């Protein structure tokens, strides 16, 4: 996105640079500008998406046919583990932090994030963590192979790469916590006058709630993996039954983090979609305050449902019932959101540019993933489907078609602002349909595989699963190539400044302060707090 970033402010903003903006590599390594750091986050997470994607394709290549063709089961387990860890902690979470860095100061009329140097630190911490994660493949014994959930007691028995994995998670967690603190302080303290909390754009709202979730649960994960680490090396027995510990305890602590974590990965997506749907339906967001309260309810409920990941660990029936009903309860605020989006589109003058296509695609496919989640929430059914491909289908429907689609929607929506260049609409549409179809070809058959009883995390399967697996593998490769196409034919031309110049307000119906600054957004924006209109979506001098 050098096109944007090399265009240091001119005219009104000429005074902003003070003539000593760092250039070259120093600009990125010493970056304190929220836009530069946002760009770094987005590029980093896209790189991790590609690495995680290659691992996914290796998994799918092995599963193309029954039998062992390409990799041995140990390496296969490393692939599934690292695919999960890299996608969750390396791709999706940093990508949303990248969006937050770029957009939140622009959306609330702040000049930058509250703690610019901490922002730099939280980004550059991710590099050693990412290297350590990816490098663990080259350690003796290979990468961690205990699944992305890192369940004890398997983690207590693994080789030294497990320690590398744990340290990487510690660092990524510290980075997330710093990023979250930064976002909360920015949102609470640095809004432009007149931008009250209940006038904030939905993306800022969902990120505020996400950031609260992050500072509440990332330390719990840090605790769980620290216990694993001390069990491994310092003679404690938190999870070691031989010393009086309990491996199921790990699952409880992990999922106390893990369930809010899944909302950490989806709430910012809700925010992005809540921005895009009104823009292209040319209507105000239906039920703004109910959206805010629904987001908060989802966040609060997410703390009391963790054990629905553990129905088969031998919970008493009372416990299963509690977690089952609590889980089902989450579908109420989520339903409020989906209905609000649909109501926003209702009788709107809709147009279907690529961001809108991805947003509508998000609602459609994410809702399918939500419904399979509702099915899995029922303990009697979950006992059958636990650790099978139905679960794999479910969480890819909400994470890929949910989080990733929303990020694509957001990228198309804001790329003109980031780069000052309009992407080619025909290419965007091709990318959307290609992605949507390939996604469903990949993951829809997994529902059938799961219902037929195919378990997760195996390198091999019996003959009766062969056809659906072959279809899924073909779809996966198409899906992967679509993302390569996205980078080289859509993102890269925009970053290099090739293409039509974008207007300050490229979308007819879009509202918000980010559209009140030129495209590409100058290096420094809102250095002096802007004066806002009553709706806090326009600058009036």
């Amino acid at each position, binding site marked *: 996105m050098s096109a944007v970033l090399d265009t240091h402010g001119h005219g009104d903003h000429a005074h902003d640079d003070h003539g000593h903006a760092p250039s070259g590599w120093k600009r990125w390594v010493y970056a304190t500008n929220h836009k530069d750091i946002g760009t770094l986050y987005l590029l980093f997470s896209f790189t991790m998406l590609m690495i995680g994607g290659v691992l996914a394709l290796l998994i799918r290549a092995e599963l193309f046919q029954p039998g062992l063709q390409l990799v041995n089961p140990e390496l296969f387990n490393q692939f599934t583990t690292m695919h999960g860890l890299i996608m969750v902690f390396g791709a999706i979470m940093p990508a949303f932090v990248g969006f937050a860095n770029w957009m939140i100061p622009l959306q609330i009329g702040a000049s930058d994030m509250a703690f610019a140097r901490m922002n730099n630190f939280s980004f550059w911490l991710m590099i050693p963590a990412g290297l350590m994660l990816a490098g663990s493949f080259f350690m003796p014994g290979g990468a961690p192979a205990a699944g992305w959930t890192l369940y004890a007691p398997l983690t207590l028995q693994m080789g030294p790469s497990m320690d590398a994995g744990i340290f990487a998670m510690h660092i990524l967690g510290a980075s997330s916590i710093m990023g979250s603190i930064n976002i909360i*302080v920015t949102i609470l*303290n640095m809004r432009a006058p007149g931008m009250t909390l209940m006038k904030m754009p939905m993306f800022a709202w969902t990120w505020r709630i996400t950031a609260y979730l992050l500072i509440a649960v*990332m*330390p*719990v994960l*840090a605790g769980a993996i620290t216990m694993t680490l001390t069990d491994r090396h310092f003679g404690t027995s938190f999870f070691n039954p031989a010393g009086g510990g309990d491996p199921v305890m790990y699952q*409880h602590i992990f999922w106390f983090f893990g369930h809010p974590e899944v909302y950490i990965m989806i709430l910012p997506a809700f925010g992005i979609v809540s921005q895009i749907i009104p823009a292209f339906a040319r209507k105000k967001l239906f039920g703004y305050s109910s959206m805010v309260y629904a987001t908060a309810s989802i966040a609060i409920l997410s703390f009391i449902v963790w054990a629905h990941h553990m129905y088969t660990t031998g919970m*008493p029936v009372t416990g299963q019932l509690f977690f089952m009903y609590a889980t089902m309860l989450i579908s109420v605020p989520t339903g409020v959101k989906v209905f609000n989006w649909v109501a926003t589109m209702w009788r709107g003058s809709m147009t279907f540019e690529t961001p809108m296509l991805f947003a509508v695609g998000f609602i459609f496919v994410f809702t399918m993933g939500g419904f399979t989640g509702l099915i899995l929430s029922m303990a009697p059914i979950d006992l059958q489907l636990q650790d099978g491909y139905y679960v794999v289908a479910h969480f890819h429907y909400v994470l890929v078609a949910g989080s990733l689609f929303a990020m694509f929607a957001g990228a198309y929506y804001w790329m003109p602002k980031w780069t000052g260049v309009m992407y080619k609409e025909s290419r965007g549409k091709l990318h959307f349909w290609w992605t949507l179809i390939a996604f469903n070809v990949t993951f829809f058959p997994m529902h059938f595989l799961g219902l037929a009883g195919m378990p997760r995390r195996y390198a091999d399967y019996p003959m009766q699963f062969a056809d659906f697996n072959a279809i899924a593998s073909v779809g996966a490769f198409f899906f992967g190539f679509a993302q390569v196409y996205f980078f080289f034919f859509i993102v890269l031309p925009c970053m290099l400044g090739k293409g039509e110049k974008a207007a300050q307000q490229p979308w007819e119906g879009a509202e918000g302060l980010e559209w009140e600054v030129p495209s590409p957004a100058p290096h420094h924006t809102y250095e002096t707090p802007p004066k806002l209109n009553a709706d806090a979506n326009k600058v009036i001098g």
Partner: protein
Amino acid sequence: MQTNFQLMRKLLMVSLGMFAFGYMLVPMYEAFCLWTGSNVLSLSERESKNSMNGRASMPLNTQVDTSRTISVEFDTNVRGPWHFSPMTRSLNVHPGELVTVMFEFENIQNRTMSAQAIPSYAPQQAAAHFNKIECFCFNQYTLAPGEKKLWPVTFYINPKMSKDVKTITLSYTFFEVGASV
């Protein structure tokens, strides 16, 4: 309005607090499981007689047949210059119950000997149901002059043993290995 740094400090405290909370979950779960007994997972554990006020309990061994009592007598045959005797002469046990008895041995010669004990049972049909988990008769021993030993036998009687057997005699004979008898 709080300054940025005040707010950051508070949020950092929250995350430190949550780190501690992660550790606190361990004793909290322990207390919760003890209170509700929700870590007692099988029906047999829950209904066992030694349960603590009907909740959490130690598992009860359901294999013991308390309706029967069998008298087990211990006997030793000393076939050489050594002392060898059981510390318990006889014992009443239930089938399925795990019992340990001790045997005493002393080599009173002034030379080192190698020896092994061989068990025999009366009546004969008890032998198949007399399950020894630990017995000195499993091994050969090399014993220094004047060496004293205290040897355990841990066994249980299979509840499938015929109801006619009321008394079992377990007799050990100690043979020197490699010596002429």
